[in-house]
């Protein structure tokens, strides 16, 4: 097991290094550098060149990369081009909202999808299974932003249960405020994950060892909890990690629609202003987080069902 953990950790480190190269080159090699973004209309080409020299943009790409990577390793993500604030501060101010949104969603989605998926699989082709399958299939087909618009129109504008945007909000964690964005995030992730849990459980329920355990007369609960659940959980945990990706996309859209001052809003703003250091910093933090989730998922799966071929 330790050998597997070490290899998996090495892979994660390699991924992080490769990731930083990808992020840096994607953002740094784009036409129109920071000096052109910062220049005002009155500047002569010589002044732009001087600014470029001052920002260090005339040096070769790999020197800049090493310098940037070194600073990132020291926890310094640079300064925003548009506001001049440290990127660290921008991330620190915006990450709270995003963490609350994603956290609440994950806390709700993990147990709910497990219960619904297993209930659906145990009564395969029964009435409950059909209802759950139909509803999740339908919900999975509706894009996040369509769902968000409909929810806003119905619950915020017509019924007035909840504010339509987060503009001018100071206290972030009130239930009325969180209800709509979390509901939007929940609908899609819950339906996707429930379908995966159901499919995984159905496969395990038909597996030879479960049939044998039943034949031996083991109590239904023992079969479900000791034999079905750990094996069915492996693909579900992997899917939960992949859901992180889905969730992040959802958070991006939900933050844009509800005007939530989170990481995604900061990222979109930075992209629009071509604020390269901020985009690099935010991307690195978000992508590193995604890497961490995948790493945790793989390690959890290794604990649940020890085997080595998961790495491949």
């Amino acid at each position, binding site marked *: 097991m330790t050998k597997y953990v070490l290899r998996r950790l090495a*892979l994660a480190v*390699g*991924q992080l290094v*490769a*990731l930083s190269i*990808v*992020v840096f080159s*994607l*953002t740094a090699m*784009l*036409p*129109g550098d920071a000096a052109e973004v910062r220049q005002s209309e009155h500047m002569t080409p010589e002044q732009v060149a001087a600014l470029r020299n001052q920002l260090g943009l005339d040096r070769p790409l790999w020197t800049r990369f090493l310098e940037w990577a070194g600073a990132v390793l020291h926890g310094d993500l640079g300064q925003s081009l548009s506001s001049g604030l440290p990127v660290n501060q921008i991330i620190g101010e915006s990450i709270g909202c995003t963490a609350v949104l994603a956290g609440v969603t994950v806390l709700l989605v993990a147990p709910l999808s497990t219960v619904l998926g297993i209930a659906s699989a145990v009564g395969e082709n029964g009435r409950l299974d059909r209802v759950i399958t139909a509803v999740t*299939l*339908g919900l*999975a*087909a*509706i*894009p*996040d*932003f*369509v769902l968000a*618009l409909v929810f*806003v*129109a119905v619950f915020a*504008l*017509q019924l007035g249960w909840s504010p339509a945007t987060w503009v001018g909000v100071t206290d972030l964690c009130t239930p009325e405020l969180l209800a709509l964005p979390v509901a939007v995030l929940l609908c899609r992730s819950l339906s996707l994950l429930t379908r995966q849990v159901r499919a995984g459980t159905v496969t395990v329920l038909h597996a030879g060892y479960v049939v044998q355990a039943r034949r031996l007369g083991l109590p239904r609960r023992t079969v479900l909890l000791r034999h079905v659940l750990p094996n069915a959980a492996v693909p579900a945990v992997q899917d939960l990690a992949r859901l*992180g*990706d889905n969730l*992040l*996309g959802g958070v*991006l*859209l939900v933050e*844009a629609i509800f005007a939530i001052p989170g990481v995604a809003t900061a*990222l*979109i703003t930075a*992209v*629009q202003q*071509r604020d*390269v250091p901020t*985009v690099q910093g935010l*991307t690195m933090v*978000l*992508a590193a987080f*995604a*890497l961490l*989730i*995948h790493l945790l998922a793989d390690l959890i799966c290794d604990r649940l069902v020890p085997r080595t071929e998961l790495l491949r």
Partner: protein
Amino acid sequence: MRRVITVLLLAVPVAAAVLGPLIADLFATQGGLPYGVDGPLGTDNLGRDVLAQLLKGGATSLGVAAGAVLLSYLVGGLIGLTAASARSRTVDDALIRPLDVLLPLPSLLVVSVVAIGGGASLVKVGLAVAVINLPTVARLVRAAALSAASGPVVEALRMQGESWWRIQLGFIGRSVLASVTADIGTRLTLAIFLVASANFLGLGLSPTSADWAVSIARNRDGLLLQPWAALAPAAMLVACTLGLNLLADGLLARARRLEVR
């Protein structure tokens, strides 16, 4: 019954996307009021006919996603096939491992980073979506091709002196087909979602474009005044993805039945 629903759900948006641009001008009413009631579906926030916009907007929504998935299957399929039939482990690793780096990247994040340079463009969004799908497609094809590629038939073909391309596409490629058809519905749905999300956020097309996702974003403020302006393109997108999901479910069930046999 289920099959009829699936075909209907898919046929309407696809027909609108493919044939729509040809006949859209027949329905265009000129210079209406914003969110007016002229025409069968009213007008949008710029006073343009919603039905005409709807017919024009499908090509970008579905076309870019389909193109991106096709591209990822072409490139990823080739990588997967080569990796599966590589006789040395090093070649296999060298082809597949680098893609592992891309695997955990959040997809909408990639699209937004790509969109940062030199203004937004649809080609870039399409390429980004193709790149995002590349690692999973390559892995899928590699896994599906592995048993066929190391079997006795390929060995015999090789000894007969058949060309690499003929072995790859003629035999191994065909054995991968079942897994690919089972996967294509889900992949296409995700690609449509991704392209639509990028367009909705303004990372792709210009804000006046007729594209379905852009139309939804643009007409969202009028949702209570003239709901069709935003709901009609939304319905098109939902019909398409719902149809694809039903299709994917059916194909998966069929694949599983074949496996059991």
